């Protein structure tokens, strides 16, 4: 199959007067890890449901794995794997039985199914737990099993809706290793997440607010576009009073408490680490240390949410 794995053009979904997804346009290349970010209710799950053939678009169109989601939802369903937000393993059944069931649901059976289930157990590191009752396992392991169930039939495209919600950091890391392995084998991964640190693993990120895709690019490019200011981190004592004074000075875009220190965004022409340190010390802070920091996706996210889109609309930018 040539061309992009996922292609959405003006994809829109309305529920009555409410527009959950508004004119969303993007495409995802084969083997790409595509992150879909946004607050709760921003339209992420609705987008996924349209792309998986579960929900008919109100207007616009989308092709997934080469099939139009509105015209041929059944063909789409056979070619994708889907792990829904509350992916529902059967908790009363053993690990292996869950795999066998989802394999059967995709038409696999007999020796082929048994072999593939073994492969998945190996891949997800669940071989020793094959007979364990699923409900007795911790959340992180269940999520790996759920991913295993979604990729048993070797889909070309996998949709993961908040796959790591409520999972501890170690398990999240293991989970993302699996996602990168999948992508390495040529599987396209479309993933939504709340965790901005995870989004760094994605090759490209789409940011949604109120049903609209307001930014779409690689994490680096997003940071350059959306956070043109210099990001500084300050530590020391008596920072609070000094910070309040600094916030009113020209060229200071934001001063936010960050742990025990301060997170500052300043115009690079007017401020650098040295001048900020001097200003804070003048304001009454003691033992001040200021360092330049890389803007995080959190900075991007906050900038996107609080501002109208800058420059050319990034939603229309294509790789």
């Amino acid at each position, binding site marked *: 199959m040539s061309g992009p794995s996922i292609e959405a053009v003006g994809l829109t979904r309305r*529920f009555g007067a409410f527009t959950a997804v508004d004119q969303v346009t993007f495409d995802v290349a084969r083997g790409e890890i595509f992150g879909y970010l946004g607050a709760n209710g921003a339209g992420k799950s609705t987008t996924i*449901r349209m792309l*998986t*053939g*579960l*929900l*008919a678009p109100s207007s616009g169109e989308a092709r997934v794995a080469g099939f139009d989601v509105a015209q041929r*939802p*059944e063909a789409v*369903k*056979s070619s*994708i794997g*889907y792990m*829904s*937000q*509350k*992916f*529902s*393993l*059967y908790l*009363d*059944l053993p690990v292996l*039985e869950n795999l*066998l*069931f*989802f*394999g*059967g*649901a*995709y*038409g*696999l*059976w007999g020796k082929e199914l048994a072999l593939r289930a073994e492969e998945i157990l190996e891949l997800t590191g669940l071989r020793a737990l094959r007979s364990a009752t699923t409900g007795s396992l911790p959340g992180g392991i269940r999520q790996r099993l759920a991913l295993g169930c979604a990729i048993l039939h070797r889909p070309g495209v996998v949709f993961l809706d908040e796959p790591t919600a409520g999972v501890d950091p170690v398990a999240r890391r293991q989970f993302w290793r699996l996602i990168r392995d999948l992508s390495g084998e040529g599987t396209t991964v479309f993933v939504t997440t709340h965790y901005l640190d995870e989004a760094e693993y994605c090759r490209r990120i789409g940011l949604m607010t109120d049903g609209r895709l307001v930014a779409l690019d690689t994490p680096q490019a997003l940071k350059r576009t959306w956070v043109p200011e210099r990001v500084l981190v300050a530590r020391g004592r008596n920072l609070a009073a000094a910070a309040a004074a600094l916030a009113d000075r020209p060229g200071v875009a934001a001063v936010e408490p960050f742990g025990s220190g301060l997170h500052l965004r300043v115009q690079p022409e007017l401020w650098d680490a040295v001048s900020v340190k001097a200003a804070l010390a003048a304001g009454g802070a003691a033992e001040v240390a200021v360092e330049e920091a890389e803007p995080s996706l959190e900075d991007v996210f906050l900038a996107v949410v609080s501002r109208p889109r800058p420059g050319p609309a990034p939603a229309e930018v294509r790789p």
Partner: protein
Amino acid sequence: MKRRLGHFLVRVGAIAAKEVLHIRRDPRTLYMALVMPVLMLLLFGFGVSFDMDHIPLAVADRDGTRASRELVDAFVAPGEFALARRAGPEEAGDLFRRGRALALLVVPRDYERDLSRGAGPRLQLLVDGADPVTANQILAKADAIVRSVGLARARRAGLSAEPPLQVKVYTLYNPEARSAEYLVPGLAAYLMAIAAVLLTALTVAGEWERGSMEQLFASPVGRLDIILGKLLPYLGLGILQLLLVVGVGTAVFDVPIQGSPLAVFAFGFLFLIGMLGQGLLISVVTKNQLVATQAGALSALLPSMLLSGMLFPLENMPLALRVLSYVVPARYLVRGLRGVMLKGNGLGVLWPDLLAMAILALAILAVATGRFKRRLA
């Protein structure tokens, strides 16, 4: 084409196999489907009897002669009545209120003298009418006893023992009026209805509630695959249940199967399909196990018990209820099973009942399938 059929069978098989695993891992399902019916059958069979004996009887014997004592003996000796106490007729109200007796027999003074003179003494029987079924039985029994005492006296006196006109009653089918023979077909309907409707409603609603339905909808699994895969295991369980109820009925309560066992099976099979369809419809509409349980219990239990003719004859019901009973599959099943088991009826007689059940089953399955949408909105 062949490949598509193969995939279809694999998917149905996978769903059915998963359901069997669920059932095996949850003893409650098996208990509900197999143990509870047998327990209820034993309980009803042994416990519920429409045939009363040892009815507590108070006696006010104002004659106190040999003849009056003979009369009281005739009431008490065969075990139909039990002598609760001797009392005056004015005590009747009090005795009934306190539940010490259900009837009071008053033998008038000069009973023996009037009897020997042929003057026709008048006995008085006061009956507690609070429960009309019991009161009717008491009246019928008292009537029979008094008549037989009268006949015996007449014979001793050398008079004609035969009244000029009489009716001889032969009861065909269940001649001893045993409750079990009457109840087992009805109970089979009731138990199968509950298990089939509740279990399917629960399992399908469970998939909605868990969110796994969305997961299945995003896979190539189709509506028909889910319906067949979910219903087949419970159809098997229901047939097992039918065998068990009929088996216990014949083994423990000597309920006969006069007709063909195959006809029993045909009735049970069609009935189960309808009930499974009803369970499916409930779960598709409610999408919630708690509500499905309530709706399933109500819609299976009440009609199959009250409108099936299992306990109460449909002929005596108000027109509205009688009309309603025509859409209750249990009505046809109870009639059919009684026909096959007690009367030995064949399909030649019972085909309208089978046809009605088939129509109702298809209708409810069609509605349930129609309401079962694979898209979320």
